[in-house]
C-alpha cells in the first residue's frame, strides 16, 4: 500500500492522506482513471477512522484530484492529472532529494533536523529578515 499516514505526527491524518495521494499521482504511482481503495478497506488496513478517509476523499474531490462515482468508488480524475512532463520532472527530482538527504544524514543530522531545514528553506526563513509560515 502506498499510503501510510503517521497518526502521532500532530498533523491531521486526512491532510497526510491527501498529500500522499497527490504525491502518488505526481510520481505516476497512480494514473488518471486508476481506482483508489474503498473507504472501508483503507480504514481497516490503516486502522484509522473511516470518516477520516471519507474526509480526505471529499477534499480531494473538491480539489479536482479525484472523482467519486456513486456506488463505484474513487478514481484519479483525468483533468487533475499532471502532464507527463510534470510527472517526469518530479520523478527525476526524487534522486536529487534522496542524495541530499543521504549527505545530510552522513553529516550526523537527524531526520527531524533535516525536515526542519527543508521546511525553513521553503518558507524563506533563511533569507535576510525573512520570516516563516
Amino acid at each position: 500500500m502506498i499510503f501510510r499516514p503517521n497518526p502521532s505526527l500532530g498533523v491531521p491524518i486526512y491532510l497526510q492522506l491527501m498529500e500522499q495521494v497527490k504525491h502518488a499521482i505526481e510520481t505516476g504511482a497512480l494514473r488518471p482513471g486508476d481506482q483508489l481503495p474503498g473507504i472501508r478497506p483503507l480504514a481497516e488496513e490503516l486502522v484509522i477512522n473511516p470518516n477520516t478517509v471519507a474526509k480526505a476523499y471529499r477534499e480531494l474531490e473538491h480539489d479536482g484530484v479525484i472523482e467519486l462515482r456513486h456506488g463505484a468508488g474513487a478514481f484519479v480524475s483525468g483533468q487533475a492529472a499532471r502532464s507527463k512532463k510534470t510527472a517526469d520532472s518530479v520523478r527525476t527530482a526524487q534522486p536529487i532529494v534522496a542524495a541530499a538527504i543521504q549527505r545530510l544524514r552522513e553529516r550526523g543530522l537527524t531526520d527531524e533536523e533535516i525536515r526542519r531545514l527543508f521546511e525553513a528553506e521553503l518558507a524563506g526563513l533563511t533569507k535576510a529578515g525573512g520570516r516563516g509560515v
Partner: protein
Amino acid sequence: MSESLAIETVDLRKRFDATDALRGLNLRVPQGSIFGFLGRNGAGKTTTIKILLGMTRPTAGQARVLGLPADDATASVTIRTRTGFVDENKNLYDYMTVEEIIRFTAAFYSGWRHDLEKRYLRSFALPLHQKTNALSLGMRSKLSLLLALCRGVELLVLDEPTSGLDPAASEEVLQAIVTHVSTEQLTVFFSTHHLADVDQIAEHIAIIDAGRTIVSGALDDLRGQYRRVQLVFNGEAPDITFHAPGVIRVRRQGRVLTALSNAGGDALIEEAMRFGPVSADVLPVTLKEIFLESVAVED
C-alpha cells in the same frame, strides 16, 4: 441540538466522602463518532462512566445518554439495553467456555447479531472450547468486545479497551472497532491513557483532569489550532508578554523562547518579530504534547 449528541454532561459533580471525583465535567459526544476520553489515572474517567451507565448517581449536574437522563432508574434501564459496555477488567464467567459464554449472553438479547458473531469469531480466532479463565488478557479483551459488539447496540462504552495488551492485540482491537463503525451506525466512547490509540481512531476527544474537562473538540481541529512557536535570539530571549489570542504557555531558556498556542502561530510570530529573533519556527503539536501541557497547567 442535544438529540445529535449520544452523551452530554453539564457541570457534572460527584463527591465521595471527602473527595471530589468530578468537579464540573462537561462532555458533548456527537452521535456516530469515535470519542476518546482521556485523562490520567484518578482523573475521574471511571466515575464518569459509572454515572453514564447508572451504576452511581451524580452529586450534582446532569448526564444524558442517548437523550435520556442517566440518573433516572427507568431511563437507565433503557440506556443499558441500548448500550454495550466493556469494563477495564474484562470480567467473564470463569467456568464457561468461549462458546458457552457467547450462547449464554446471546440468549439475553433478542437483537443478537449472529452475522457479527461469525465475523468476529473468525477475525479474533477465539478458541471456542477453551474455558475463559484460561484465556490470555488479549483473548479476554477480544471476547468481551465480541460480546458487546454482537448486541447490536447504538452506543459502545469501553473502559481502557487496550490496557495491558501487546501492540499486536491492541491493533486487532482497534481494527475491530474501526471495522464495526464502518458497517454499523453507532457511537463509540472509549476511555484510555494510550494516546496513540486516540490519535489513530478518534474523531473527537476530551481531556479531563482532576474531575474537569480541560480540552475538548474535534481532534483535527485541535491538531490544526495548536502550534508551538520557537524563537531564537542573538542574546538572551526577551521577556515578551504576548497579547496574541490563544497563548497557553511561554518558556524562556537562554536564547530560546518557546510559546504554545491553541490559536495557530501566525499572530504570535507577528508579535514576536518586533523583538528581532534570528529564527522563528512554527511546529505542529502532537496530542501527547497537548495532553501533557493541559494536565500540567492544572497542577
